[in-house]
């Protein structure tokens, strides 16, 4: 009967502290509080507002690929610090921290897999690694993923999630936009399909290169997409931005996204599309 005695403790906001970490999840979009196990079942999509939480690259691999298996390539590629870049932190330290935090060597995982039996060259970006930013390694790994598609004649699927080019590698990061887009031109000439999947967020240098160049462009609901960040635009024009500006829904309406696809239907949609566009 111990809990009877507990009626005394102060009625402060401390109630939240008593909930074991991670048992409940609060939706960052609508504020709905959902049992975390339920969220897991829902693939981290809010049952109230359909907001798609960011999930790990490994979750996408499980979700999209046959048997959840990706045969990874180029795992040993790591960044150098060609500019000896330092702001509040040294770039080299930033890289180490990101590696520790994510358990990844860089911001993209790539390799070969199957989707409904079809071979695909696959790459997925990870926002937790320095904002999913594209430096030389991300550019190189995406480039090699495109080349594997070209060499083997198999479809390309890229899941993007990135704030843009990586500032810490300066102009070298910008050139990754050209490197990847130029290879996509070759891929297109060979009539090999490329499905680009946009997740929250996909902006700037990545959106202005390979993410925008898919034969089909699918996007998760309510993701932030676009070229310039909303803060930059707001500062430039000096007025508030309209509701829903730069969301997936906005870009569907403007004609820059083929289809908004809920996470649970992503795999099926990609497979159906590839079956129209690719024959062995």
């Amino acid at each position, binding site marked *: 009967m111990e809990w009877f005695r507990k009626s005394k403790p102060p009625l402060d906001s401390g109630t939240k502290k008593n909930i074991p970490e991670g048992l409940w999840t609060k939706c960052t979009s609508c504020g709905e509080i959902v049992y975390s196990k339920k969220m897991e079942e829902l693939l981290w999509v809010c049952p109230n507002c359909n907001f798609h939480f960011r999930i790990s690259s490994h979750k996408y691999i499980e979700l999209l690929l046959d048997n959840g298996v990706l045969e990874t390539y180029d795992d040993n590629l790591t960044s150098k610090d060609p500019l000896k870049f330092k702001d509040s932190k040294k770039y080299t330290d930033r890289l180490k921290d990101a590696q520790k935090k994510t358990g990844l060597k860089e911001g993209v995982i790539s390799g070969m897999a199957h989707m409904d039996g079809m071979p695909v060259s696959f790459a997925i970006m990870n926002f937790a690694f320095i904002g999913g930013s594209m430096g030389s390694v991300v550019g190189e790994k995406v480039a090699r993923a495109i080349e594997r598609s070209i060499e083997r004649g198999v479809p390309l699927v890229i899941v993007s999630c990135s704030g843009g080019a990586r500032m810490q590698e300066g*102009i070298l990061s910008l050139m990754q936009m*050209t*490197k990847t887009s130029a290879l996509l031109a070759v891929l297109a000439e060979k009539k090999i399909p490329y499905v680009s999947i946009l997740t929250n967020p996909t902006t700037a240098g990545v959106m*202005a290169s*390979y*993410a925008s160049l898919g034969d089909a462009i699918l996007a998760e609901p309510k993701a932030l997409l676009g070229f310039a960040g909303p803060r930059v*635009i707001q500062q430039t024009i000096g007025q508030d931005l309209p509701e829903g500006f730069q969301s997936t829904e906005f870009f569907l309406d*403007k004609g820059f996204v083929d289809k908004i696809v809920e996470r649970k239907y992503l795999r099926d949609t990609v497979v159906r599309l590839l079956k129209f566009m690719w024959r062995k």
Partner: protein
Amino acid sequence: MSERPYLEFERPIVELEKKISDMKDFSVGESIELSGEIASMEKKLARLRQDVYSNLTRWQKVQLSRHPKRPYTLDYIELMTTGFVELHGDRYFADDHAVVGGFAHIDGQPVMIVGQQKGRDTKAKLYRNFGMMHPEGYRKALRLFYLAEKFNVPILILIDTPGAYPGIGAEERGQAEAIARNIREMSRLKVPIVIVIIGEGASGGALGIGVGDVTMMLQYSWYSVISPEACSAILWRDAGRAQEAAEALKVTAEDVMGLGLIDKIIPEPPTGAHSNHAAIAATVKQEILQAFDSLKGLSVEQLLEKRIAKYRRMGEFQE
């Protein structure tokens, strides 16, 4: 906002120039012999110029690239070419005044010229949107590139932009898509493409018309993944630390050349391109002709193979 016609670090030079010219006027008007003094001051001026211009910081070079008197694309077109026929519009939405393009002759050779254009006075600056293109600008450029390809005319690109325009309309009309498409399409255009960065080369805004076979930078131009101001605003949440950002980003022609990402640095007159438009235009013209010449022997297949291979190599990593 009225703008001084010179930069802060140019002030001692400008002041000394003024003194010398005053003294010359005075000596003529009053018939007083001052040639000795004038000569010594001119020597001093030469030393001062040498001193200032041989020790420029990266940030000072960025400032020079934005010098209010710096030659712009239309200045180069006027000084280097004949018979320019400007072509307007993207055929879909509008004519973007931040970019100009059309056919012209350089030394009798036909070229398609496309370049960002800035305005000199307030009205012109607004008309040109400060050289910041919208999606329709990138689509206009691409239309002209296809036109050049169709009639086998080589392409000359002059880059001078503080960035692609970040605005509501630009997003609505697909700024990212327009730039991405241009990058992809330019990598496969079947005519030689020569690029000269004449002033500012900011990020995707520059790259959206910046893929080709030979890329050259003027000595006091810059090329970067992000402008020093924007970088400083993101990293330090303070746009006032652009000077540090310019250093960290390594944005100058020398830096980019050092990374092996461009083919050549075009030297400017001793006190910058703005001090002698005719001289810099003559230099740039010679470099352009030479660059096109270097591409002449290549078949279309060789040209495209070389172009892709060049960009394929870019990046520094360990494996």
